[in-house]
């Protein structure tokens, strides 16, 4: 036995179905845990509420990202076409009234910037990419992307206790309860 002290990440428990996970989640939520998560191979409808999660703030980020795109496109078009180097093409005005011609690009850049905001905002919110995680050390956790349903309660949670939490997981229907340790840094 190694005497190295390992930091505990938390307990991982498997649940037999989506329904079981759902019910367990409600119980964990009601028990007042905050640092925990449910793991499933697909998004389970209604689990957010069961876990007591708030709605994602991503839409707000994307809205501002999109607006940035609109403004960028307008400024790009307006400054280059009207301010810096106006050129007479097909007798069209070189002032603000040429705006209709900018709409397509304003639209496209809005979408483009929104798309990028979605991507990067999502990654930031999910704190991904994160290649190493204590949970990956668990053999059974592999099934979380196949057909396994898991709950992991983290040691960081103030309600976490070495024995109580394990028992709690068992109570709410978890099986194969496993202590997850963090890798040494």
């Amino acid at each position, binding site marked *: 036995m190694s005497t190295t002290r390992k930091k505990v990440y938390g307990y991982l428990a498997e649940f037999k*179905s989506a329904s079981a996970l759902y019910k367990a989640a409600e119980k964990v939520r009601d028990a007042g845990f905050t640092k925990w998560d449910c793991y499933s191979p697909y998004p389970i409808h209604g689990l957010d509420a069961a876990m007591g999660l708030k709605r994602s703030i991503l839409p707000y980020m994307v809205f501002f990202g999109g607006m940035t795109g609109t403004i960028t496109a307008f400024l790009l078009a307006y400054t280059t076409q009207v301010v*810096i180097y106006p050129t007479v093409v097909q007798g069209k005005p070189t002032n603000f009234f040429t705006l209709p011609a900018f709409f397509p690009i304003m639209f496209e850049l809005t979408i483009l910037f929104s798309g990028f905001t979605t991507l990067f905002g999502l990654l930031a919110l999910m704190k991904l990419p994160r290649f190493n995680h204590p949970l990956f050390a668990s053999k059974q956790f592999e099934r979380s992307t196949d*057909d396994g349903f898991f709950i992991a309660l983290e040691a960081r949670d103030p309600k976490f206790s070495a024995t109580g939490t394990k028992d709690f997981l068992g109570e709410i229907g978890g099986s194969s309860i496993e202590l997850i340790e963090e890798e040494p840094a």
Partner: protein
Amino acid sequence: MAHASTTAHEPRNGPKLPVLEREHLILNNRSYHWITERICGIVENKQPLLWWILFIPSALIAMLGVGGGLTLLVSTGVGVWGMTNTVFWGWDITNFVFWIGIGHAGTLISAILFLTRQNWRTSINRAAEAMTIFAVCCAGIFPAFHVGRVWMAWFLAPIPNANAIWQNFKSPLLWDVFAVSTYFTVSLIFWFLGMVPDLATIRDRAKPGLRKMLYGIFALGWRGGNRQWSHYEMAYLLLAALSTPLVLSVHSVVSFDFATSVVPGWHTTIFPPYFVAGAVFGGFAMVLTIMIPARAIYGLHDMITMKHIENMAKIILLTGTIVGYAYLMELFVAFYSGAIYEMEAFKYRMTGPYWWAYLAMMSCNVISPQVFWFKKCRENLWVIMAVSMAVNVGMWFERFVIIVTTLARMWLPGDWKYYSASPFEIILFVGTIGMFLMLFLLFLKFLPCINIAEVKWTLRESDPHFDDLNDHPDDGTVKIPAYQHELPETTDKGTTV
């Protein structure tokens, strides 16, 4: 090791909840694991011989057609193609619009059907999105390389430069540059994000090694926690919401290339909706053309069901009819204009030197989909395949008719000239077909071709209240022996019971 499917269900106490019977999107009561096995198996197992038979020629064609064709083109000049000083665009832009059109079905299936909660999309959306990406790749080759000086194409990018000169933001072509690049980027993001959980599935199933590392990198460390799923679903919804207008805008902008010009036969306000409908039409035809064989080869009948195919046939019928309406409306508008230039542009389309192209367009696009009024035809894969192929051909001819026949007979009879494509144009087009197939086959080999997570989500037992329903005597039970023998023998035994 416990397995969800082997666990007996506890009957729920309480009143019986009324549940509407839904049609099964996935047949034969397949389990989560079966789905995982089936889809990941395609990636994990050796490819069937047919894959190689298709891949090797398409890779060769892609190399020779695209690689060779472009080398010749760039080293020698656009003159190796058949364009003239009357018909300045020929197969190049025809092919561009053709491929871009095909690229519309993917994002449309993903995005619009997602927003409209058409759950049947889940089985086909991944492949359709991949098609989008590959079709846009093929499409991009044409406008990029049809220019006279491709090495100067960076002039299209608004980069601050010592020349202090900028782009013309009034040009539909510049709009095109932005639209197509945005479309490609957003489609790629959409496709990739959708794939992350599935890549994680493959990662988790893979044996340690380079393969696992690579899938690991692209899976970004996905863990499937609900705190991730929560944001992820929001992001997916947002992307779908963004992509929907984007899809509509891209082909509208492509149509602006024509509609904002002064060319009789191009200068038409009907073009944007007409092009979008045409793109959806052509896109679905291509999805069918690809998916029907893939379904047969990989045995995906339970996931891509006849319902999927029939739905797509109905969409083809609908959009084909819209396109047919647009064709007729064009003629009417030209007639109604009272201008000789407009009227004759269409007269010469129909009866002029390229009458055969118009005939091909009309018969393939308007007449052939009409068979889908009959359910028998919608259910006969051979008929569907034949119509899809006809629509692919017809949509190519539509673009050819719009571009070439118009330019060849424009305003002044003194400049009328007949255009015929040179072998090099044909080679490049064939090359892009090869490239498209090659990329698609690579996609089948290396990436999950069906959205695993979403398909699981469509199963009835994915409902968190599924266990509460007491009127599901057998639905939750999976008959293990029924599928076990279907599984390939190389399946990792560790994951089965």
